[in-house]
């Protein structure tokens, strides 16, 4: 998993590339990385899944833990551009009830300002 970031206004866009699974973790897990950003004061985080091929149960745990940590501090963590296949799995497992998922980055960014 490779992470690069962009920042638009005060929204941190996290472009993730690769897979989020237990067999592929680097020194820092996604949740640990997000916690670092929260400590730096970031509160609006958009995870761009355009280049994420697959996530396993470990990856889901990481996304949920990141979501919980962000929301517990009054922040917002949203997802954008996830694959159709992943979206279907998210739907079946009811993750779409909890996570805000967008097709379009611009719409996702605007949603932060509407709140």
């Amino acid at each position, binding site marked *: 998993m490779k992470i690069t970031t962009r920042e638009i206004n005060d929204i941190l866009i996290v472009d993730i590339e690769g897979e989020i*699974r237990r*067999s592929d973790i680097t020194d820092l897990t996604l949740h640990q990385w997000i916690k670092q950003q929260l400590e730096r004061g970031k509160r609006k985080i958009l995870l761009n899944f355009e280049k994420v091929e697959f996530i*396993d*149960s470990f990856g889901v745990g990481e996304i949920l833990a990141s979501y*919980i940590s962000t929301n517990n501090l009054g922040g917002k963590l949203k997802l954008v551009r996830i694959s159709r296949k992943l979206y*279907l799995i998210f739907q079946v497992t009811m993750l779409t009830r909890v996570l805000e998922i967008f097709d379009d980055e611009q719409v996702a960014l605007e949603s932060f300002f509407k709140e």
Partner: protein
Amino acid sequence: MTAEPSRLHRFLSHLVEIKPGEERITLLLFFYFFLITAAYSIIKSLRVASYLESLGADKLPLAYFLTAVSIGLVVAVHAKLQARLSRLNLIILSLSFFILTAVLFWFLFSFQWAWLSLAYYVWANIFLAVVITQFWIVVNDIFDPRETKRLVGLFGSGGILGGILGGEATGLMARASVDTRLLFLACGFLLLTIVVVYLIADWQKRVAKTPFWVSTEPASQKGKNERVGFRDCLQTVVRHRYFRLLAGGIALSLIVSTFIDWQFSKVVEGTASLENRLTSFFGHFNAGLLVLAFLIQIFLTSRFVQKFGIRFSFLIYPSTLIAVLTGLAVLPASLLMALTLKASDKSLSYTLNQSVRELLYIPVSPEIKYKAKIFIDMFLNRFARGLGGILLMALLSFNPDLRFISLVTILLILGWMAVNLQVTREYATVVRNKLKKKWDRADKMVAEQLDLDYLKLAFDTLDTRGRSRELLAMDIFDLMKQQKLRPEFKELLTSSLSESGVSSLGTLFEEEALALSEWPAGESEDLFKKEVDEIFALENYQGLIREYIRRALADKKPGKEITRMEAAKIIGLMKPRWVPAEELAELLEDESPEVSRLAMDSAARCGQKEHLAVIIRKLKNPATREDAAAALLTFGSKITGTLSDYLEDEELDLETKKSIIDVLSRMGTQEATDLLALELQKNQPELDGELIEALDRIHHLKPGISIPVEISRKKLKEEIERHCQLLLAMLGVRHGQVPLEGEPEKELARSQSDIFKLLGFIYPGDDISRAWQNFRSGTKESRAYALELLDNILIKSDREWVLPLLEDLPPSDRLKRIRTLLDELGKP
């Protein structure tokens, strides 16, 4: 860089706790109050003199009656104007009206019509009710409760000083018993008031604190045709418990004041030494009283309210009266006692009591506050005085002695104190409602909305790349066994099969034609599970599986991971029929996190505690941490003791300890909570953050679980001390001393968050959450209300520790406060 405080600021800060930038508005309010009370003192002296000279004291009841009726009309008119005009226009219009009518009265007085003094009497009372109420409305517009508490001593003293100087000016300048020319002096004061009000409006425009100063009020923006009048104001009071209590308390205080006036007059009347000197005696006494009130207001009121809070301050006035009245009831009546009674009444009523009373309005929503305020301050005020007089007359018809009246007054005061207590309790609720809850803990929502076990199993089942059909079949069987093979999941797998684009998911099924539709469902599902279970129970089958597992363990070549995964998975499915402990232990140690995950899950399902050590060790590795935690949670509360032993192990690494704390918090049992609280009691700064977070999580998710208050308070004290040290170090950095290592701002933010979490274990969690959320991410106003809520719900010692850390203070003041606090905390 902080600008050096001005000379004016330095001077004013000797009197009250004033912040840079507040000098101008505080002084403007001081002069506003000063000018209107000075004008009123002149108008009042003419009111009494002209009435007594023209109509005599016997006709005073008529004046009282007409005043009450007129004030009712004024409330109605004022409410209408208030809804239609901006605050600035309303005040300017009112002041202009009083200036013009004062000149008109001066002109009409020359005709010496006897009944004119009656009209003047009523007009003077209306003047007082309107201008004083408007002044306090302006204070409500401008300040939040924290600012009012700090500054009311200063601007409130303007009113008392205006009373003293207005009275003295009347005495010095009056050339006849009814010198109507003094009305021009009053008009002069009112003209100056207009200037001051314009300056306040200018300040308002710049800080844009209340836009309705220059446009209309928020309430009126809903609809200009909304009917606003006396009835509407009355209904606002009747509909809201808070206003009912406030009105009840004020009415009782005014009735008590009427009773005290009578008792005082009775004692003075019977004092032989004062015969023929009554007028001069009262003159000196009243002047002395005003000076005393001024000193109390400017030096004590703000300090007192800030130090002791609203509740205690609101009880001081009635308690003092009870103490003096008890003396009057028990001891022989004396002039000294009567003077003490009167002095206590007047000096505390105009100062501490009025300041607290006005503070109580501030957090109320403007939509209802101003309607209620004009009803209570203008109408009820007069009405209660009249009611007090009627009650007193009724009592006096029984010819009671002074002692009896004192006892009745004490009873009334006790009722008044009970109401005051209720009001201050409600005040905390009003402040709480002012604070919007901005977010809820997300873990609670996630736990409510999602089945995490299903979620994980579903994702792993769908992760088919490089997996064997046996492993997939076992995952599906696992879901079926746990009653989690849901129709929508089956549908997803089936639709995936038919989608050519979803190759990774479909490949296995396409090759092996393992159509989901062929999996048993309904009644045949139970039969299927039973059949599989019977196979698991066969000794021959178990022998074969053992052999298979051994072969899998022997071959650790690359690409053979999947065989070990199958081995690890089947053990969990076969429990409790057969558990190959040795093989499971080996699988747990497997280097592959996938094998390790399945082995930990199987070990947990089998409930074999001998594997706990390996699983706990896996908490250290980020790749296996969450799976190890999940496995430990499957063991359940029976392993709490083991986890406790690990936490006490000094050799154990920090990461594993932190993960154990997380597991205990997810267990969320009382036993786990007690264990975490005991750990918190120990001096382990490196674990404190995790322990507090873990307890906070339990506190929010399991409201029935209790966290020992003594431990929380002890830790709170320690955390405050740490916070002070961090602040001192940070302020030291700014003052060019040795810089701090690490990231002090982050540490400070973390420490502040921990302080609030600890407070949440002692006080209602919802209140503390609201305070924290608004303090951290609210506006200046919501931060102030967050502090005000804490001020009202925390006990004195906690309040004195916590508030100095959170108040927005200039660095030098903060430094001073922190040092004092550290000294206090250092005391045993």
